[in-house]
């Protein structure tokens, strides 16, 4: 009996150790994904605004250009459909929510609560049984019966906790494996969007804005006052910085980082979850955070530069 109890306690503790390892890496994964999603989302939400600004900038430096809304070239009208942008924003939010829900399951306190609740229930049942014995027979309750209640409650609590932990792990594993193909598909599409749509759009748009200012200055500089030249040259300076930042920034890097962190999570979930597996996962997430930092910095710089122009 004692050996069985020891085994049970050891098993229970082992169960707790295994599931506890999920909590930290998933928490880090979620935080990292939330930061990355904010930066990726900014690119998509600003696509049409960016194009409108390029269009108006063109009109500013070219007096022959009429400003229109709609038509074949779209003019001021949005060029990228609202539904397409919304699908990207939804994808970004859903991935973030997915990380948060994984964290909620990984961090569920239900198994601990079950164990504590079982012990309380056992103690209370024992007290009630004693009271009924006294009330019905008038005799003192059998003290030896009470001695079994504590260990039995502990056994029920420990078993229950193990069952709940196993359920929690199974739910986590199923969710990670079921979602993996869709998460990969979303990341592949976001990567393609950022690399083949956003990047060329921003780089050529900033180049066009720079050309407009440079050409305007070169054509009109002789007719301009010193102050007008000074103002325009400052604008050209700021626009040059923006162009250079656009050609060096690689927004898809954030997606690469999420992909690596996600692949590490899938591998870890399906592994034996020993300390070596955990350290590989944490290492992958740390790498991701390092990769993400320049992307976030670049976005902040672009925002600052935009405000400065």
């Amino acid at each position, binding site marked *: 009996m004692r050996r069985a109890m020891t085994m049970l306690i050891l098993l229970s503790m082992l169960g707790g150790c295994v599931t506890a390892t999920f909590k930290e890496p998933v928490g880090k994964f979620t935080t990292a994904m939330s930061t990355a999603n904010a930066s990726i989302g900014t690119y998509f939400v600003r696509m049409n605004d960016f*194009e409108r600004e390029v269009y108006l900038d*063109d009109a500013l430096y070219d007096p022959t250009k009429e400003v229109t809304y709609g038509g074949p*070239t779209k003019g001021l009208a949005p060029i*990228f*459909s609202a539904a*397409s942008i919304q*699908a990207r924003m*939804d*994808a970004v939010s*859903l*991935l973030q*929510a*997915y990380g948060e829900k994984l964290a*909620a*399951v990984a961090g569920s*306190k*239900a*198994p601990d*609560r*079950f164990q504590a*609740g*079982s012990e309380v*229930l056992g103690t*209370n*049942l024992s*007290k*009630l049984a004693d*009271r009924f014995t006294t*009330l019905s027979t008038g005799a003192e309750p059998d003290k030896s019966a009470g001695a079994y209640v504590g260990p039995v409650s502990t056994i029920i609590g420990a078993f229950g906790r193990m069952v*709940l932990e196993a*359920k*929690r792990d199974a*739910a986590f594993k*199923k*969710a990670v494996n*079921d*979602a993996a*193909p*869709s*998460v990969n*598909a*979303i990341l592949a*599409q976001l990567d*393609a*969007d950022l690399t*083949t*749509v956003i990047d*060329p*759009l921003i*780089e*050529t748009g900033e*180049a*066009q804005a*720079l*050309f*407009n200012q440079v*050409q305007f200055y*070169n*054509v009109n500089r002789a007719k301009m006052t010193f102050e007008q030249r000074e103002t325009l040259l400052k604008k050209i300076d700021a626009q040059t910085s923006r162009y250079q930042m656009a*050609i060096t920034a690689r927004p898809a890097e954030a997606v690469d980082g999420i992909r690596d962190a996600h692949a590490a999570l899938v591998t870890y979930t399906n592994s034996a979850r020993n300390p070596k597996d955990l350290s590989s996962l944490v290492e992958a997430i740390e790498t991701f955070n390092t990769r993400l930092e320049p992307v976030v910095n670049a976005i902040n710089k672009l925002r600052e530069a935009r405000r400065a122009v």
Partner: protein
Amino acid sequence: MLFESRHLSAAVEFDVQLAGETTADTTKLAQIVKTTFLLAMDPRPSLGQRAILGSIAKELRERLRMLLSERFKAGTPFLVAANREIVTTNRYLEDEAAKLEKIADTIEQLGKLVAAVDKLVDIIA
């Protein structure tokens, strides 16, 4: 002069090719647009030639924008389908978390109920 006309003819040639192609290489086109804008700011062509290069670059960018818009739209259905799958997984995770909490709630409530009955018996007796 040879320098600029070579790039100019490459840009125009690509522009002509676009009309007959359904799937254009937007990455190559974006590179040509950037190169043409850079040429339009290069001091070697005259100001007039730079203006022409700038107009060509803008025209090419206009076409690039249209192609990018179509490419962006084309990727949307795949994304919508994948989003649906994530919604399902998120619901599953919510349900599982709720089930686990419910089991723990039940056992806690049972403990409280037994304690309440004990107090009630105390009052009655």
